[in-house]
């Protein structure tokens, strides 16, 4: 028997499927075909079945079914909880870039309006400088500075939101490296399912693509860490054990990601054991 979207054909006899577009879409989703001795559908059989009037009718109905199927699948994909987190963390990182760029620009600009101004011997953080500039009456320069301040406030808000969402979606990963870094891992991997399928060694170098490929292609040393460096456990570790900490941490993260994907709740026994193991790796030899 050959199964097609418009019906089943067995030994020249057609059993048409008589549902509407929506029912046909449901049918196609569950159809399973075996590709050995499979014959693709043709419009003449559909006409023979009495499902279509002619070729034009065949294509137009098939199109309707396919468009509906695709719309449903897109909707299902977007329903997944990690999709919005992905967009949020991406926006957050983009905002950081924009804020830094604009801050640099505004300070440069401010400097040429004050020939005697210098940042030497002063430890004014750029952020405070931006506040000073926004308070002056410098026209659009001050306006931009206050826009940057507003953007920074929004950024702080968004960062908290990302962190909260990550703790909800990635409870185990977040417990090991914090919500923000966990969210960035998810973004680099391309989603929760993708992250859960990565081996620990890949998680270790997520976000260190340039270094990794330059190592694979040439003679540069391999990267010890990618995004996970952002967590204090890695960047505060003594240099001689930093690679080790990164390796142990990422191995535990691989397990944590799978727990997050397939259980979705915190697993205290695992976390206690993993934390101890990572701390032990970070102890001075």
């Amino acid at each position: 028997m050959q199964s097609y979207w418009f019906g089943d054909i067995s030994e020249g006899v057609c059993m048409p499927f008589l549902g509407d577009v929506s029912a046909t879409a449901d049918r196609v989703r569950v159809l399973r075909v075996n590709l050995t001795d499979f014959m693709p559908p043709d419009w003449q059989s559909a006409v023979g079945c009495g499902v279509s009037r002619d070729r034009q009718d065949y294509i137009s109905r098939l199109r309707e079914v396919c468009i509906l199927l695709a719309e449903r699948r897109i909707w299902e994909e977007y329903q997944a909880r990690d999709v919005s987190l992905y967009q949020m963390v991406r926006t957050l990182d983009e905002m950081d870039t924009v804020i830094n760029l604009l801050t640099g620009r505004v300070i440069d600009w401010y400097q040429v309006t004050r020939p005697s101004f210098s940042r030497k011997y002063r430890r004014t953080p750029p952020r405070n400088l931006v506040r000073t500039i926004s308070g002056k009456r410098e026209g659009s320069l001050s306006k931009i500075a206050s826009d940057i301040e507003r953007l920074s406030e929004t950024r702080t808000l968004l960062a908290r939101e990302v962190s909260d969402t990550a703790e909800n979606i990635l409870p185990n990963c977040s417990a090991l490296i914090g919500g923000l870094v966990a969210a960035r891992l998810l973004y680099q991997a391309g989603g929760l399912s993708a992250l859960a399928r990565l081996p620990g060694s890949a998680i270790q170098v997520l976000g260190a693509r340039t270094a990794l490929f330059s190592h694979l292609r040439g003679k540069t040393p391999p990267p010890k860490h990618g995004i996970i460096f952002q967590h204090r456990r890695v960047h505060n570790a003594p240099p001689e054990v930093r690679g080790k900490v990164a390796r142990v941490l990422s191995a535990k993260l691989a397990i944590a990601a799978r727990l997050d994907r397939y259980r979705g709740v915190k697993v205290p026994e695992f976390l206690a054991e993993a934390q101890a193991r990572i701390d032990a790796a970070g102890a001075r030899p």
Partner: protein
Amino acid sequence: MIWVDGVLVSIGEGGVYGERIIRGARVWDPYRSKLSALYYKGTILDLTPDMRVLYLGAAHGTTVSHVADYTEVVYAVELAPRPMQELLEVARRRRNIVPVMADAAHPESYAPLVEMVDLIYQDIAQPDQVGIAIRNRIFLKSGGMLVLMLKTRSVDVRREPEDVLSDTEAGLTDAGIRIITHEWLEPYHHDHAAIVCRNEISGT
């Protein structure tokens, strides 16, 4: 193929992606579309009004829209939801595009939908491009054409593009697909080769 003053065009409703229009025809830019680049490189592979096409890796539907201007029907396969969203919009306005949201590596998932075609156009950035082409051959008529856009960097970044190309061609030949020609798409696309083949035996 339709050329206006040395510019490749297609005839259809414009404004799909902000393409230029000259004398009422849509400009098909070789820098944006690999298939267009192939025509600019002088390959003769006519798209005709009676042609049925299976397009694997349809992406946002920009090249698909041009192919649809020339041919009878295009089955456009794409897996990722974001590009599919755009492709659907193109398909709603072009009555001869059948959008299929599925993984081209698993033709069994869309086999009940796709009929026999005259041309398979494959533009997928995946390592196993030969395997995907061979699995989709069940849809290709005997004597039908296969155009494979090989992004050599997706197969293996560490190897020379030429080696990747010759390996791919060997894989296709072993499967009984006759290679007619290949073409590097410089200067339009880097490290991309187009392989034009013909299906010698019937797909099933």
